[in-house]
C-alpha cells in the first residue's frame, strides 16, 4: 500500500462509508478496512488523512480508526506475528507527538490515547526520545500544546499509582524523574506566575488552571511509589504553591453550574489528595508543612457552599482532616476547644444537612437513596465524610465533641418544635447527628454494636422518635418518618425490648405509607427486629408476643407489595419470609390466602425475573409455608402441589432459567414431605430430569442433584421396578458430573444415594463400570476434593455391600488393585476427609475392611493391616489434614463438599443432615474395638501380635483406650 493520493482517496471513501447508518453499506466498509490494515503504510495513510483531509468528519473518523487500530495491533504478543511493520512503527513514533499537539482537541484526544497505548508497550526503552520531545514542548509557551503534553504524560504515568514496585517500574520512574521533574517544577512555577499576570483574563485562566490540574495529578503519580529525592529537595516550592492555590479564589473561575465541579474545585481536590498522600506516607518530611495545610483545608471547608459541584472537594477535604486528626502527633492541632467547636459547627454540622439533592433522591430515586442510606454505598458523600470526621475526632476528644454536639442537637430540636412543617430538616439533621455521634461500630446484622456511652439513646428514642411514629398521618414528614424508623433499626440492640415492642405496631402501620422509602424502611425494620436474638439464642420476640398483630402484619406486608414502585420490593419480601419464620403455626389460618398471593406473585415475576433478591425471598417464603403447614398436617402437601404445580410447569415450559433451580428445590422439599411411595405425578417428571440439556447449565446442577436424591430416597423401589430403563441415564448424569473438577462432588452425592437406596440387584450390572470411571478420573486429574469424595464413596460401598465385595470389585478390575488403593489412597489420604458424617462413614468402612475381609488376614494384603489400623486411629485422633498441594491453589475448589448436599441454597428448602450409618453405629471408636474383639475371637493370637509389632506407641495407647471403653480385650 503506497502513500499515494489514490490510496488516500480510496481510504477516504471507505471511512465515509463506515459512518453510514445503513449496515448494508457500513459493515462491508468496516470489513474492508480490517482486511487491509495489515498492509504497510496503512497507519501512515490514516495519519495523513487526519492531518490533511479537507473534510473535518473524515479527520475525526481517521483519528478514531487510527486509535482503534493501535489498540488492536500495537502490542507484540509472543508467538504471534508482529502486526505492524517496523518501518511504520518508527514513523508513527516519530510523528505522533507533533501531530497530536498540532491537532484540534477532538483529534488530540484520540492521538493522546494512542500515544499512551504505544507508550505502555514501548516507553521508555523503545521510545527513548519521547520524554525529551515532551519536555521540549514545555518551552513553547503555547498552553494548548503544553496541556496536550501534560495529558499524555498523565496517561503514561498514572499507572505508577497502582502498580507494584518492581525493578522495571522503578527504572522507568527514575528515568522519568531525571528528565521530567525539573521541567515540570519550572512549568508549575511559571504557570502560577502567569495566573497572576492573567488574573483578569477568564479564558487564559481556564487554560492555565487546566494545566495546574494536570501538573498536580502528575505530582501525585510521580510521588506515589516513594518520595523522590528531587521532590524532597523541592518540597518547599511545591508545598508553598499548593498551599497558595488552596487559598486562592477568583470570581472568573467560578461556574454557574451547580452540579459539575469547576476547575478551581478540581484543582483544590487534587491538592487535598496530594497533601493527604504526603501526610500519610512521608509524615516525617512533611511534618512542618502539615499544620498550614490543616488550617487551609479547614478554612476551605468553612467557605465552601452546599452545591453538588463542591461535593468531591468537600469530601476529599474532610477525609483529609479525618485522617490527620486521629494520628497522635497531630492531636495538638485539634485539641483547642475553639478549634473543635469551630470544626463541629462550621464543618460537620453543615455537611450533615439534608440538601435539596437528597430530597430529590428521597422522592424520585428511592432505590438509590435506600442503597446509599442503608447499605453504606455512600462512601464519597459529604454526610459520610462528616461522619468519618466525627469518628476520627472522637478517638481523642469524645467528651468535648459530644458536649458540643449535644448543644447543637438541642437547639435544632427546638427550632423544629417551633414550626415543624417549615423546620423539619433541623430535626433530620439532629437525628443524623445523634446517630453518627453514637455509633462507634455497626454491622448489617446487629445494627450498632458499640455506642458512645455519653449519648442517651433510649431517652432520645422515647422523646423524639416515638412521637413522630405515633402520629396518625403516616404520610406526613416522610423524611422524618424514615429517620425514625432507621433509628429503631440501627439502635435496636441499644434500645430496651419494652420500648422496641411498642414500636412494632407502629412499624406495621407504616407499611402503608405512600413513600417508598418509608414503607421499605418499615418492612426492613420489622425484618431486623424479628431476626434479633435474645437469651438462649431464641428470637428476641416470640410468636406469642407478635400474635396480636399477625393478621394486620400479613395484610399490610402483602398490601405494601401493591404500592406503586414496590411490586418487587426485596425488603418487603424478606420481611414476609422473616415473619413466616417467626410466626410459624400462627400463619396456618391464613395459609390459603398467603399461598395464593405468593403464587400470583410468582407467576407475575416469572414473566421477567429482574430482582434476584426479591425472587429468592419469595421462594424462601414458599418453602416456609410448605414446611410450617405440612409439619402440622403432612397431607396438606397435596394442596401445595395443586397450588404450585401450574406455575412450576409454566416456568419449566418457558425455560425461565433464573427460577428453574428454585423450582427443583421446592419440588425436592415437597417430594420429601410425602411419607409414602412416590406419587405418579413425580414419576412422570423423572425421565425429563435426566435430559442432558438441563445439566448443561451449571446453575441447575446442585438443585437437580438434590431433586434426584429425593427421588432415590423416596422412590428407589419404584424406579427399580417401573423405570429400570432409566438407570443408565441416571448413571450417565453421574458420569458427566464426575468428569468435571467443579462438579465431581455432586456426582458423588448422586452416586452415594444410588448405592444407599437402590436395590443392589438393580445396579449390579453397572458396578464395575462405575469403578472404572472413577479410576479413569483418578488417573487423569487427581484433586484433593475428588480424593475426599472418593474415600467417602468406597467406604459407603464397603458398608453397604461388605468389605469382601469391595476387595473383589477392585481386584476384578485388575489383580492387586485393592492393595494399591489401600496403600496409595486410603492409608495416606484418609486424614484429609472432613465432616462428621463423612468421617464416621470412613471409620465404619475401614473397620469393616480390617475385621470382615478375610484377604486382609491371610494374603499379601496382610502387611497393610496394621498401617490401615494406624491410619484409622489417626483419623480419630489427629487434626484434619487440610493442606492442599500448591498446584491446586488456583483450582476453584468448593469449600468442603461433603456427603451431604452442602449447598442448601434455599435455607428453608434445606434437608436435614442425613447419616447413612446412623443407627448402625453410634460410637465408631467403640465399634472398632468391638469389631477387633470379634475378629480376635475368630483367630486367637493373631490380632494382638499384629497390633503390638508394628503399631506406633501413641496409636497403641489410643487403641487400648477404645478397648477399655468398650470393655473388651483382644485375644
Amino acid at each position: 500500500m503506497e502513500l499515494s493520493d489514490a490510496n488516500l482517496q480510496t481510504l477516504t471513501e471507505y471511512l465515509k462509508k463506515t459512518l453510514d447508518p445503513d449496515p448494508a453499506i457500513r459493515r462491508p466498509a468496516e470489513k474492508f478496512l480490517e482486511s487491509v490494515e495489515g498492509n504497510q503504510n496503512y497507519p501512515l495513510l490514516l495519519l495523513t488523512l487526519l492531518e490533511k483531509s479537507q473534510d473535518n468528519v473524515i479527520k475525526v473518523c481517521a483519528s478514531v480508526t487510527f486509535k482503534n487500530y493501535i489498540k488492536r495491533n500495537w502490542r507484540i504478543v509472543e508467538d504471534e506475528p508482529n502486526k505492524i511493520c517496523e518501518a511504520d512503527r518508527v514513523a508513527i513514533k516519530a510523528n505522533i507527538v507533533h501531530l497530536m499537539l498540532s491537532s484540534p482537541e477532538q483529534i488530540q484526544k484520540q492521538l493522546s490515547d494512542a500515544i499512551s497505548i504505544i507508550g505502555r508497550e514501548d516507553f521508555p526503552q523503545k521510545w527513548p526520545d519521547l520524554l525529551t520531545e515532551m519536555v521540549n514542548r514545555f518551552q513553547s509557551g503555547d498552553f494548548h500544546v503544553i496541556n496536550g503534553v501534560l495529558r499524555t504524560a498523565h496517561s503514561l504515568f498514572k499507572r505508577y499509582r497502582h502498580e507494584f514496585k518492581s525493578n522495571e517500574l522503578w527504572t522507568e520512574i527514575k528515568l522519568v524523574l531525571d528528565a521530567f521533574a525539573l521541567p515540570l517544577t519550572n512549568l508549575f512555577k511559571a504557570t502560577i506566575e502567569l495566573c497572576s499576570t492573567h488574573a483578569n483574563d477568564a479564558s487564559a485562566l481556564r487554560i492555565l488552571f487546566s494545566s495546574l490540574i494536570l501538573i498536580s495529578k502528575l505530582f501525585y503519580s510521580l510521588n506515589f511509589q516513594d518520595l523522590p529525592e528531587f521532590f524532597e529537595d523541592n518540597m518547599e516550592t511545591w508545598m508553598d504553591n499548593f498551599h497558595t492555590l488552596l487559598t486562592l479564589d477568583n470570581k472568573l473561575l467560578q461556574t454557574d453550574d451547580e452540579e459539575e465541579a469547576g476547575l478551581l474545585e478540581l484543582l483544590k481536590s487534587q491538592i487535598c489528595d496530594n497533601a493527604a498522600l504526603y501526610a500519610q506516607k512521608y509524615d516525617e518530611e512533611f511534618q512542618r508543612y502539615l499544620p498550614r495545610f490543616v488550617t487551609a483545608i479547614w478554612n476551605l471547608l468553612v467557605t465552601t457552599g452546599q452545591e453538588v459541584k463542591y461535593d468531591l472537594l468537600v469530601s476529599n477535604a474532610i477525609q483529609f482532616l479525618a485522617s490527620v486528626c486521629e494520628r497522635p502527633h497531630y492531636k495538638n492541632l485539634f485539641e483547642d476547644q475553639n478549634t473543635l467547636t469551630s470544626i463541629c459547627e462550621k464543618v460537620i454540622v453543615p455537611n450533615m444537612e439534608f440538601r435539596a439533592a437528597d430530597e430529590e433522591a428521597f422522592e424520585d430515586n428511592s432505590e438509590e437513596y435506600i442503597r446509599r442510606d442503608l447499605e453504606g454505598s455512600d462512601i464519597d458523600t459529604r454526610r459520610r465524610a462528616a461522619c468519618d470526621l466525627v469518628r476520627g475526632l472522637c478517638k481523642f476528644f469524645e467528651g468535648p465533641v459530644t458536649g458540643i454536639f449535644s448543644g447543637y442537637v438541642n437547639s435544632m430540636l427546638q427550632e423544629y418544635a417551633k414550626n415543624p412543617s417549615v423546620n423539619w430538616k433541623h430535626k433530620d439533621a439532629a437525628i443524623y447527628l445523634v446517630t453518627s455521634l453514637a455509633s462507634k461500630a455497626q454491622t448489617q446484622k446487629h445494627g450498632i454494636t458499640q455506642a458512645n456511652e455519653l449519648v442517651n439513646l433510649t431517652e432520645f428514642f422515647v422523646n423524639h422518635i416515638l412521637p413522630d411514629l405515633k402520629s396518625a398521618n403516616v404520610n406526613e414528614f416522610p423524611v422524618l418518618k424514615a429517620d425514625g424508623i432507621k433509628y429503631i433499626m440501627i439502635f435496636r440492640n441499644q434500645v430496651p425490648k419494652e420500648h422496641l415492642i411498642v414500636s412494632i405496631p407502629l412499624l406495621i402501620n407504616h407499611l402503608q405509607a405512600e413513600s417508598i422509602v418509608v414503607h421499605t424502611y418499615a418492612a426492613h425494620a420489622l425484618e431486623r427486629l424479628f431476626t434479633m436474638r435474645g437469651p438462649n439464642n431464641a428470637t428476641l420476640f416470640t410468636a406469642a408476643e407478635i400474635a396480636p398483630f399477625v393478621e394486620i402484619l400479613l395484610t399490610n406486608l402483602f398490601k405494601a407489595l401493591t404500592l406503586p414502585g414496590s411490586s418487587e420490593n426485596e425488603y418487603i419480601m424478606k420481611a414476609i419470609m422473616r415473619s413466616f419464620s417467626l410466626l410459624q403455626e400462627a400463619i396456618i389460618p391464613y395459609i390459603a390466602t398467603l399461598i395464593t398471593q405468593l403464587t400470583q406473585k410468582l407467576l407475575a415475576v416469572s414473566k421477567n425475573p429482574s430482582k434476584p433478591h426479591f425472587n429468592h425471598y419469595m421462594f424462601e417464603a414458599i418453602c416456609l409455608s410448605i414446611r410450617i403447614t405440612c409439619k402440622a398436617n403432612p397431607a396438606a402437601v397435596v394442596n401445595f402441589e395443586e397450588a404450585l404445580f401450574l406455575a412450576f410447569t409454566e416456568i419449566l415450559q418457558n425455560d425461565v432459567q433464573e427460577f428453574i433451580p428454585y423450582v427443583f428445590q421446592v419440588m425436592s422439599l415437597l417430594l420429601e414431605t410425602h411419607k409414602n411411595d412416590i406419587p405418579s405425578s413425580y414419576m412422570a417428571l423423572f425421565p425429563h430430569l435426566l435430559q442432558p440439556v438441563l445439566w448443561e447449565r451449571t446453575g441447575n446442577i446442585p438443585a437437580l442433584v438434590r431433586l434426584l436424591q429425593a427421588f432415590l430416597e423416596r422412590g428407589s423401589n419404584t424406579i427399580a421396578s417401573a423405570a429400570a430403563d432409566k438407570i443408565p441415564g441416571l448413571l450417565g448424569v453421574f458420569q458427566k458430573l464426575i468428569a468435571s473438577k467443579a462438579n465431581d462432588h455432586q456426582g458423588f452425592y448422586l452416586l452415594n444415594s444410588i448405592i444407599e437406596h437402590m436395590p443392589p440387584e438393580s445396579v449390579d450390572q453397572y458396578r464395575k463400570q462405575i469403578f472404572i470411571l472413577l479410576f479413569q478420573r483418578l488417573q487423569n486429574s487427581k484433586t484433593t476434593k475428588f480424593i475426599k469424595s472418593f474415600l467417602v464413596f468406597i467406604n459407603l460401598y464397603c458398608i453397604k455391600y461388605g468389605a469382601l465385595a469391595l476387595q473383589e470389585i477392585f481386584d476384578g478390575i485388575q489383580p492387586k488393585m485393592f492393595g494399591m488403593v489401600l496403600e496409595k489412597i486410603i492409608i495416606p489420604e484418609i486424614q484429609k476427609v472432613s465432616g462428621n458424617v463423612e468421617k464416621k462413614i470412613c471409620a465404619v468402612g475401614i473397620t469393616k475392611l480390617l475385621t470382615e475381609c478375610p484377604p486382609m488376614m491371610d494374603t499379601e494384603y496382610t502387611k497393610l493391616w496394621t498401617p490401615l489400623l494406624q491410619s484409622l486411629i489417626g483419623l480419630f485422633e489427629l487434626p484434619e489434614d487440610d493442606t492442599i498441594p500448591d498446584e491446586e491453589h488456583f483450582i476453584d475448589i468448593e469449600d468442603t463438599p461433603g456427603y451431604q448436599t452442602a449447598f442448601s441454597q434455599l435455607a428453608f428448602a434445606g434437608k436435614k443432615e442425613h447419616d447413612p450409618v446412623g443407627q448402625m453405629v453410634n460410637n465408631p471408636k467403640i465399634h472398632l474395638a468391638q469389631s477387633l474383639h470379634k475378629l480376635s475371637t475368630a483367630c486367637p493370637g493373631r490380632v494382638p501380635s499384629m497390633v503390638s509389632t508394628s503399631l506406633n506407641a501413641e496409636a497403641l495407647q489410643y487403641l487400648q483406650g477404645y478397648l477399655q471403653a468398650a470393655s473388651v480385650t483382644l485375644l
Partner: protein
Amino acid sequence: MPTLDVPEERLRKFKYRGKDASMRRQQRMAVSLELRKARKDEQTLKRRNIINSCPYPPSEKPAKGMPGSLTLGEIIKGVNSSDPALCFQATQAARKMLSRERNPPLKLVVEAGLIPRLVEFLKSSLYPCLQFEAAWALTNIASGTSEQTRAVVEGGAIRPLVELLSSSSVTVCEQAVWALGNIAGDGPEFRDIVISSNAIPHLLALISSTTPITFLRNITWTLSNLCRNKNPYPCEKAVKQMLPVLFYLLQHQDSEILSDTCWALSYLTDGSNERISQVVNTGVLPRLVELMTSSELSVLTPSLRTVGNIVTGTDQQTQMAIDAGMLKVLPQLLRHARPAIQKEAAWALSNVAAGPRQHIQQLIAHDILPPLVALLKNGEFKVQKEAVWTVANFTTGANLDQLIQLVHSGVLEPLVNLLTVPDVKIVLIILDVFAYILQAAEKLSEKENLCLLIEELGGIDRIEALQLHENHQIGQTALNIIEKHFGEEEDEGIILLDQLLDQDNEFIRITKN
C-alpha cells in the same frame, strides 16, 4: 551502604516461610533502585581531621602567620624542594589548608600534583613530623570524593601508610590508621587493597589494654571500615582475623568504640547465613542484646541492626538470638520514642515472625503483640509498613491458637484502617492477611463472629471499595474475599445466590456497588 532504609535490602534477606505462593513471589522482587534521597549513614564513612590544635610540642609549633598562610604556588614549590625543613613547612601549610572547615581546596591540591610528593614524605622515616603532616594531608584528601580518594590510592599511599602502622611515633601511627580508614571506607575496591596490603595484623597489633582511648577509637573505626561494604564482601580470612578483636572491643565501656564495633558487626552480618554464622559463633549475641538496651542511640542503633541481621539467618541462628534474650528487649524498643528505632525493631521482629511456630510462640510469650499493635495504630508509615510485614509473616506461619491470640490482640482494627493507605503492596498484604485469618476462622467455625468484627471496624466497606481498585491483583483479592466470606449476610445460612445462579453471578457485585 548497609542502611535498612533501603527496603529491598530487607526483601532480599527476608526469610519467608509463608504458604501463600503469591506473597512469596513478591518477596523475590528485589529492587536495587532508590527514588529516595540517599540516607546519610548513621556511621561516618570518611572523616576529615579538622582539629587545628597541633599535637606537637609548642616549640615546634610554627610561628603565627608564617607557613600556615603559604599560597598554593608556594606550597608546590616547597614540597618539591630538597630541603626537609621547607618540605615540612609546605606540607604543614597544605595540611592546614586541607583542614579548613569550609570548602577545603581538595580538588586544587590534587590537581596541583602534590600527592606523589606527600606519599614520598610518608617514607621519610627520619622525619616523623613530616611523615605526620603528609599522612594528615593525605587523610584529608582521602576524605573527599571517590575520585580524590582514588588519587591518593593511585599515588601509592597505601603501602607506606601500612608501614607507618609500625612507626614508633604514636601520632604518626594514629594518623596512618586514620588515613587507611578513609581509604577503606570509600568502597570494596580500596578496602581490599588495604586488606591485601596486610594492614589488619598491623592494626590488631596496635590494640592492647594500654592503648589510649582516642587511639583505640580510631583503630576501631578503621576496622569497621574494613568490614564495611559488600559486592564483594571482605574476604573470609580478613574477617576471621578481625572477629576476635571485635569481640574484645565489644566488651569495652566507651560508647564510641562500642558504636563502631557494632557497626562493624552489622556489616559482617549483613549477608549470607554463613557470614552470620561466623559472627554468631564468636559468642557476641548476649553482649549485643545487652547493648540493645543502651541509652546511647549510637550504640543501640547498630547493635539492634546486627541482631536484626542475625535473625534473617537460619532458624537456629534466630533461636540463638532469642536465647540471648532479644525478645525481652524488643518490646521496649518497639515503644522507643524514635521512629527509626521502632522501625528497626519491627523489622527484626518481622523476621522472627517468619520463623517456625515455636518462635512465634515465644514472640507471644514475651508480650510483643501489644506494642506491635500500638505501632500499627500510631506509628509513622514506614514503621507501620514493617509492622504489617510482621503480621503477615506471623499469620502465614502461625497455628490456629496463635492466630486467635493475634486477633485478640486487636490487630484487625489498625489493619482495616491501613486499607486506605496509598501503598499498593501494603494493601495487598493486608488483604492476604484477612483472607488467611478468615480461612482459619472458618475451620474454627468462628467465621461469622470474625466477619462481624471486621464489619464493625468498617472493613467490609473498605474491602468492597477495593474491588474497584485499578491494580488488578488487589481488585481480584478483594473480590474473592467478599465473595467467599461476605457473600451475603445471613443468620440462618440463607443464600449463596451467586453459586446458585452461576450463569449470571454478576448481579451481586452490581447491586452492591
